[in-house]
């Protein structure tokens, strides 16, 4: 008898999604990973924890975020496009969902400090925000190159009381910030939680972060039903590590919706990568013929990552979701298009998903399809960068 496989449930006890995931960390960090797994399983089954997480996201985080019908954009594409407005969440992106969960968990574990990595600065700002709210001390590791690209976010984190450390090793971007945060975590696991920013890293992070982000998909599912749209033909989200995508996919993984993750073309781990082990997980990675991890290149700091969360690697391998790449030029174009047609300036990351819809409308996306777009963040952080790029061209 054929049974429809069920997607996006709990991973295996060793943290595997199919062949991907697992736990590849120094022994010094193993006890902390095991402690975290136990604490998360316990908290997530505790109604009082879940209630608190939901009520903080409601009162502090601004949830539920709306679903907006993009009327003029839809007309342009010949589609029915609905945007899940994570750009309207507190701190300007979906990152708040994860950090509210993880900081509450930090407190529950009796730890007084969090560390985090950040690329664009969005996860760093969100972590600093949630830490300030609970009185946790906070240190954020950020690639030196990114501190320059996103200097306002550095100041935001400092305003929120966090310490920002510029990471000067390697490519000085997100992957190096993760390395540095892991190195730091070894020295302070007793009182410090590593608040990882995406669905990556060693078990239980990919699963835990997806669970904390799945509120996006569950809300959107209910919202589309309420407005009579039902299950959309397609769900599209940008993918760096893959947390906003995992969050929205989680609401639709066991429906008929097609799931599409849009990576930066210069960091397309599924399209151009191969299986490997990095940052505590087995996943798809962009690497050299010798297994050295390559640097990703993207206009958006948040997608400048040579890997992808292990559950996405599994969703790709199993065929449940599809992953595509979009280049910088199309992203810039899409950012302007959405701004001018809808009055929404998307984050450069989110603009990857917008660009793919624009590109594939009437091609890979049949005309008339209903599409749910995850607008993972707002573009405020990117306007200076975009202005400089556009001005240089005149």
């Amino acid at each position, binding site marked *: 008898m054929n049974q429809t496989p069920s997607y996006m449930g709990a991973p295996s006890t*060793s943290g595997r999604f199919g062949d991907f995931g*697992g*736990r*590849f*960390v*120094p*022994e*010094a*960090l*193993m*006890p*902390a990973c095991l402690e975290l797994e136990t604490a998360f399983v316990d908290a997530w089954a505790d109604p009082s924890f879940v209630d608190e997480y939901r009520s903080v996201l409601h009162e502090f985080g601004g949830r539920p975020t709306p679903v907006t019908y993009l009327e003029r954009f839809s007309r342009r594409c010949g589609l029915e496009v609905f945007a899940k407005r994570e750009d309207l969440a507190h701190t300007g992106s979906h990152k708040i969902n994860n950090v509210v969960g993880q900081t509450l968990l930090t407190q529950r574990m009796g730890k007084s400090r969090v560390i985090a990595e950040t690329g664009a600065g969005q996860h760093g700002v969100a972590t600093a925000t949630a830490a300030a709210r609970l009185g946790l001390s906070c240190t954020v590791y950020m690639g030196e190159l990114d501190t320059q690209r996103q200097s306002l976010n550095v100041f935001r984190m400092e305003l929120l009381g966090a310490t920002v450390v510029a990471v000067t*090793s*390697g490519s000085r971007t997100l*992957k*190096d910030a993760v*390395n540095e945060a*892991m*190195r730091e975590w*070894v*020295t*302070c*696991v007793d009182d410090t939680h590593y608040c990882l920013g995406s669905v990556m890293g060693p078990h239980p992070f990919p699963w835990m972060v997806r669970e904390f982000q799945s509120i996006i998909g569950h809300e959107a599912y209910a919202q589309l039903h309420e407005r009579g749209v039902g299950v959309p033909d397609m769900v599209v989200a940008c993918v760096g590590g893959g947390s906003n995508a995992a969050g929205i996919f989680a609401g639709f993984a066991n429906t008929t919706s097609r799931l599409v993750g849009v990576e930066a073309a210069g960091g397309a781990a599924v399209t151009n990568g*191969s*299986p*490997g*082990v*990095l*940052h*505590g997980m*087995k996943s798809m*990675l962009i*690497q050299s013929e*010798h*297994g*050295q*991890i*390559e640097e990703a290149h993207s206009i958006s700091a948040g997608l400048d990552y040579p890997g992808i969360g292990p559950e996405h690697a599994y969703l790709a391998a199993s065929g449940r979701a599809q992953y595509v790449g979009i280049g910088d030029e199309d992203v810039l174009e899409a950012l302007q298009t959405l701004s001018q047609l809808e009055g929404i300036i998307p984050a450069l990351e989110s603009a990857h998903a917008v660009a793919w819809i624009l590109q594939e409308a009437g091609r890979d996306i049949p005309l008339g399809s209903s599409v749910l777009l995850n607008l993972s963040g707002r573009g405020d952080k990117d306007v200076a960068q975009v202005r400089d790029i556009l001005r240089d061209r005149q």
Partner: protein
Amino acid sequence: MKSLEATLRTLRDSGRKALVPYFMAGVTEDWTHHVAAAVHGGADAIEIGIPFSDPMMDGAVIQLAAERSLALGTTIDSLCAQLSAQDLGLPLIAMTYYNLFHHYGLLRAAGRLSASGISGAIVPDLTLEESDEWRSVCDQTDIATIFLVAPSTTPDRFARLAATTQGFCYASARMAVTGRASGDGDASRVVEAVRATSDIPTYVGIGISSPSQAARASRYADGVIVGSALVDLILGGATPDDTERFIAGFRTALDE
């Protein structure tokens, strides 16, 4: 028993404390001369670091060494070819991150290491739980799989790690990556925890940067691993003679 472990047990039975320096393969054109100098200086086994782009367990010194080595084009094949051309006459132990072996092919990697005279491997990001495949491949060759224990290791894990590690047990003195902390820290407690469940030779690393620290650790451990301090010396332009003197200083301290 793997040949590495037989050798290291014999060494311990002879009453000699093991001195294991770490070299980053390919960090300079003459890196194998430094290795040979360490042998003359009194090393008992050599750790050969294979450079990886993202060394999560390493501090600034070994990161820099890895970057330099990669810029010089070091690969598993190139360093194995260089080692095959030597006969150093003592155990060589590879140390690197799992992705390199995974990418090379586990069986092929173990075979290549073994054919070039390497008899052990330390893979710091390969947890006990994820190690089945690598260990079974190493069992098809004569590569000993060496595990680390740390100050944070729990009693049940000490027992399982000490029972699984081959050759020796690598006791981290510190909750730190390489080169960040100096001194033997919690090492005596960590070594005792291993001893409580196993008689495997136990060496202290991560935090041993001077002969006096090495001597201190050797009072309770069977040997010491010296990494960043030596790599730093070589990055600073040391000659093989400098390396020999550096190692001889540790040898003297351990033998006193």
